[in-house]
C-alpha cells in the first residue's frame, strides 16, 4: 500500500440549480482517517461522491498525489446495492471489473468472505441479507480490490453496537496497513475513536478542518461548538 494525499481547491458543486458545495479548499494527509462530519444535508456524502468521481465538479479541482495516480479508490455507499447474484458472485464481479482474473477473483472473494464472516452466506442471494450482513458485504466488496483510498459513507449506520465495533476494528486495521480512509459518520464517538483529523461541513461550507483532538477540545467555530453540544459533547470531554 502507498501513502496518498488529496488536495482539493475551490471545489464548488451545483446540483439541480442550487450550490451544494461552496469553494472547499483543503489538503488531506496521505495517511490516517479523515472524518467528514456535519448535520444532514451538509454535503458530506456529496463530497465523498465528488472525490470518487461520481459527481462532476462545477468549479475547482481535486488533485490526487502523484503516487496515487492510477491507484484504486473504493466507495462504500450508505445504502449499498447489489447485483441479483449470490454474495460471492457480487464480490467476484467487483474484482473482475477491476481487472482480476476469474480464478484469482474467486480465491480473493473467499478470503474476503472469511474475513467478514460471511462464508456461511456465500451462496445466498445478496439481496436477501440482513442490513448488517449487507454492510459487511459492502465493506468486503470495497476492500477486495485493495484500494489505496477507501471512502466510507456511514459504514456502521445499520449495525448493532457490537457489529459497529467490529466494523471499526476493520477500518482501523485497513488504515494501519496504509490505506487512506475518508469516513462520513454521524457518530462522534466513532469519529473520536478512529479519526486523525476532522473536516466539518455546514450547508456545503467548510467550518472546521484540523486534528481530531482540536475538534473535540476547541473547534474555534461557534457552529461547530453548537454541533458538539447538540450531540451531547461538552468540550474537552472524552467520550
Amino acid at each position, binding site marked *: 500500500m502507498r501513502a496518498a494525499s488529496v488536495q482539493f481547491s475551490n471545489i464548488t458543486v451545483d446540483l439541480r440549480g442550487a450550490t451544494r458545495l461552496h469553494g472547499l479548499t483543503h489538503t488531506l494527509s496521505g495517511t490516517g482517517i479523515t472524518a467528514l462530519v456535519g448535520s444532514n444535508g451538509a454535503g458530506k456524502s456529496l463530497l465523498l461522491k465528488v472525490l470518487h468521481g*461520481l459527481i462532476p465538479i462545477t468549479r475547482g479541482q481535486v488533485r490526487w498525489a502523484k503516487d496515487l495516480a492510477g491507484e484504486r479508490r473504493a466507495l462504500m455507499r450508505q445504502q*449499498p*446495492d*447489489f447485483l441479483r447474484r449470490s454474495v460471492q458472485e457480487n464480490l467476484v464481479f467487483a474484482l473482475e471489473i477491476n481487472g482480476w482474473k476469474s480464478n484469482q477473483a474467486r480465491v480473493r472473494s473467499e478470503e474476503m468472505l472469511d474475513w467478514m464472516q460471511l462464508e456461511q452466506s456465500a451462496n445466498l442471494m445478496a439481496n436477501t441479507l440482513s442490513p448488517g450482513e449487507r454492510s459487511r458485504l459492502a465493506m468486503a466488496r470495497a476492500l477486495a480490490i485493495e484500494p489505496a483510498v477507501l471512502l466510507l459513507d456511514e459504514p456502521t449506520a445499520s449495525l448493532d453496537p457490537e457489529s459497529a465495533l467490529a466494523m471499526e476494528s476493520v477500518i482501523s486495521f485497513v488504515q494501519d496497513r496504509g490505506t487512506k480512509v475518508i469516513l462520513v459518520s454521524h457518530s462522534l464517538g466513532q469519529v473520536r475513536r478512529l479519526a486523525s483529523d476532522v473536516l466539518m461541513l455546514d450547508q456545503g461550507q467548510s467550518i472546521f478542518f484540523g486534528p481530531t483532538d482540536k475538534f473535540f477540545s476547541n473547534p474555534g467555530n461557534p457552529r461547530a461548538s453548537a454541533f458538539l453540544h447538540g450531540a451531547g459533547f461538552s468540550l474537552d470531554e472524552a467520550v
Partner: protein
Amino acid sequence: MNWLSHISDFALLFFDATLWEVTGRSLFVSLMATLISMNLGLILARCLLQAHSRWAKFFDALLGAFVAIPAVVIGLLALLFFTSSIFKESQITLTIVPMMLAQALLLTPLAATLCLGALRTHFKLIGEELVSLGASNSAMFNVLIRECWPTLIATSILVLSRGIAEVGTVLIIGGNVEGRTQVLTTLIAEKARIGIYEQAIALSLILIIIALILSLVVRTLQKRFET
C-alpha cells in the same frame, strides 16, 4: 347457423397441412422479425441509456411516437423500397424476407422503447453502484442486460405478440401468395373477404390460442422475476 357443421369444420382444419404450414410461416416470420427488432432495440437503448443531449431526448420521443405508427404505412414504405430499382433483379419481392424486414421495422420502436424502459429502471437501481465499482460503459450495459433478462424476455414475447397479430405490413409487402407468403392474419383476412366465415373464425381461434400461450409465458416469467 349449423353449429355442428362449424365444429366439424374447425376439427377438420386441424388435419389440414396447409394450416400448419401457414401457422409455421407466421411464427417464423414474426420470430425472425422479433429477433432483428430486439437486437436493434437493444442497440438503440444502449445509445440512449446515458445520453442526455437534446438530440437524444428528441430521438427518445420520436421512438415513442413511432410505436404508434400504422402497420400499413410501414408496409407501404417497405413495398416502395423493395420494388425500387435496387432490388429489381433480386427476385426478393413476394418472399418472406421483405416481410420479416418490414415487420422488424414496425416492431423496432416498440422493442427499443420497452428495452430502454427496462434498462433505465435497473440503471436507477444499480447504476451509481456500478459506476462507483469502476464498471466501464460496456461492462455496465452487460450487467444491466443480465440483471433485467426476465423483463427483456417478456418484452420480446410482447413484441412477438404484436408481430404475429399484425396484418397490414405482411399483406402489403407479402401479397398473401398461397404457399409462399401467406400467413395466419392474411389468410383470415382473405377468408373473411370471400365470405368463408367459419374458417376465418377457426383460424382466428388458432391466433388467439397462440396469443394466450404467449401471454401465459409472459405472466409466468414476471411472477418468477418478482419472486
